[in-house]
């Protein structure tokens, strides 16, 4: 529902920053329902490789998207530090598997920089802009693009 950067420019907004591989990303905190530890997922047949399967979220069946795989970085090896960020996009609730949550950023829309013009498909498809925070570069992920929509169509 909360597309990053859709509202007022000047207002300060909060983002959840997380690590996928060696890179840092963030998503608008308004889209985050909860953050929970990794539990083994039940694999789904005929699912894209980045869909790790489904887990039980208090009685609801929650699909898990491996963000590293989604971004083409490679399959995540879940560890004790691995985290599932539960996000809601429109009516769909999905868990994003990431390596770790790093911090909560408070920043303004104005300080967002456009995505550097690189050849990577990842950047073009999933990143809508970047923030520079204490010498780090944090990419803002557009939630809609990471959802397993193709799976829906494939059915």
């Amino acid at each position, binding site marked *: 529902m909360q597309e990053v950067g859709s509202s007022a420019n000047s207002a300060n907004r909060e983002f959840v920053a997380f690590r996928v591989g060696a890179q840092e990303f963030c998503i608008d905190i308004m889209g985050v329902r909860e953050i929970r530890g990794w*539990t*083994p*997922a*039940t*694999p*789904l*047949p*005929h*699912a894209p490789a980045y*869909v790790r*399967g*489904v*887990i*039980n979220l*208090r*009685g*609801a*069946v*929650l*699909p898990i998207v491996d963000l590293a795989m989604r971004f083409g970085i490679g399959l995540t090896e879940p560890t004790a530090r691995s985290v599932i960020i539960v996000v809601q996009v429109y*009516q*769909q*609730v*999905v868990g994003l598997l990431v390596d770790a949550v790093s911090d909560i950023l408070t920043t303004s829309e104005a300080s967002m920089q456009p995505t550097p013009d690189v050849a990577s498909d990842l950047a073009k498809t999933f990143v809508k802009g970047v923030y520079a925070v204490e010498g780090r570069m944090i990419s803002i992920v557009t939630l809609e693009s990471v959802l*397993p929509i193709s*799976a*829906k*169509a*494939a*059915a």
Partner: protein
Amino acid sequence: MTVDTMAAIRQTFFQECEEQLSEMELGLLSMDEGNTDSETVNAVFRAVHSIKGGAGAFKLTALVQFAHTFETALDYVRSGKLHPSADVMKAMLRAADVLADLVAASRDGKEIDESSYAGVAADVKALTTVEGEEEVEEVIEFQPTVIDFGLPDMAPEPTAAPVHEYRVGFTPRPELYLNGNETVLIVRELSRLGNAEVSCDASAVPGLDTIDPNGAYLSWNIKLSSEAPIEAVREVFEFVDGEAEISIEADGQSEVSDAAIAALLAQALGNASAGEPETAVTETNSEDHPQSAPAPTEVIASETAAVSPQATEAKAVAVQTQTTIRVEFDRVDRLINLVGELVINQAMLSQRVIEANFAGSSSVIIGLEELEQLTREIQESVMAIRAQPVKPLFQRMSRIVRELADTTGKQVRLKTDGEATEVDKTVVERLAEPLTHMIRNAVDHGIESPEERIAAGKSPEGNVRLSAAHRSGRIVIEISDDGAGINRPKVRASAIKKGLISPDAQLSDSDIDNLLFLPGFSTAATISNISGRGVGMDVVKRSILALGGRISISSRPGQGSTFSMSLPLTLAVLDGMAVSVAGQTLVVPLTAIVETLKPKKGEIHGIGADSRVMAIRNTFVPLIDVGTQMGFRDTPADPERSVAILVETGGGARNALLVDSIQDQRQVVIKSLEANYGTVAGIAAATILGDGRVALILDVDALVSGSLEEQIGGDVHYGTGG
């Protein structure tokens, strides 16, 4: 009143109509069986009357008129002027059907062509004119006013009619003020109709020393020139009907007074003997407070009560039995979901406790057992909320039988049994279509014509029996007829002709009966518009299977056929077999499983590139390796170390599913995969296991057809490659 409130009241009205219709039909059927005691007749009368009253408030003219005709006939029965003979009851039942149609049409905002039911209406009307008594037609006008929701849109549109001169006398009684009505509003409303000259008569006001502060002493005389008809003028006073003396004179002509209306009302209700119209009116209105917008049922009931003491008793009975509340289904579903989670949580907790190795006698274990029992009870109680009796469904069927008997010229009687049997609402809803089809079949194909029946030494009237019962946690519905039974030679010949079986196939009687369920099979030589609409028993079977049910058939030539369906009581849980495939737990719906087998050496044969079949008692069924099919592993499993589950699809095809091992049989709570993900080929839904993990429920039909497609796809691939 806002549009929303209006819509809500309208919705309530139609909801109540459903109840009234069902009540009416039940009563009529009971009357048809000879129970013509006053309570039954009154119940039917009340139901029709309530519908009429409510319909009047919504200006559903066609409905009001028909209900009125019907009601009049019922009143004749009630007052003993008309004997409820078989013919009379037949007409009444047909009228009930028309009334139901009219209600449905009004609800959906459709128009029903009057000619379509004119015959029935005339028949019913004829019942009351036999005695040569005149019916007071104007009553229709007045009846609806009894229940008034105080809707602003009730006033008719001003027409281009000539200007009338009205002289209106309006003397409020103390009740008017007590009920919070305001004379100024009424006078203002009146002046909206046209040019009004209002004068107040304060002559009755006593001196200050004798004045009653709660009294009413003023009266008004209004000279109104308006194009509006007198009804419109009268409607202004609907709010305060009975709370004031109202006289309306139009163009010098005196209008019907309250008392006269009451007299007509009483007469129409078959109790003109009252002779005290004044009392009737007061009573009626003392119970009728339009401001509180009570449900139509109550108002009508109280009105009837004022006129007929018999009805009062009957009403008391009705009130006692109707201790229900309306709850939105969303809320119930939410509760069911929560309880489902509670059950899973409880199972998880138990498992953890066992893993933690508590001593068997410890109080923790005892507490857990109690908790388990409680949660199970809660689950059952919650499921019971969604459960509904099959009664309304069966009532619909009796209507279908009546209509069919009419069109086919056959004499059929439907007997129902176990109407109070309860099953999940969704099951009831989704049963309607297959059941209708089967009932049509029973009447159209099963029951013979009266001549044939007599020739066969049977009574000319055929019987169709519809029964429901609970049996070992499922609902069993049976439809049986005492007709000719399945014509097996004809079925067989037809199946051969359609290429469904080979001419030399060896088939047992039950095999032949089951041919009826094959897609593309229809016994009717000519397609009748009753049961041969291109949907056959295969569709029935498929919809029953989709509900997790099973259907079977038995037939004895000359004595009739019985279709028996067994269905789960709820769609929220499913009986399944938990199996292991490549380290994953999958659930196979129990309804699809025929048997489980341990493949032996030599029973599995390769066919084609990578297809295999399994020999089961000299027939070969395709073998589906669930592990590879689901993409859980790349290499096919070794059949001799696996278990084969023989399954039957909705189409009747048999396949063997190869799984690693069988865990157990259990009841699982069905969880949707679609909500957050989407549909997955070969998977029907998901469930949550005792350890909190998600397990997938196989969609056997899709799995089988998916495997077929893959093989065909493979062939094409090889073709282009070569």
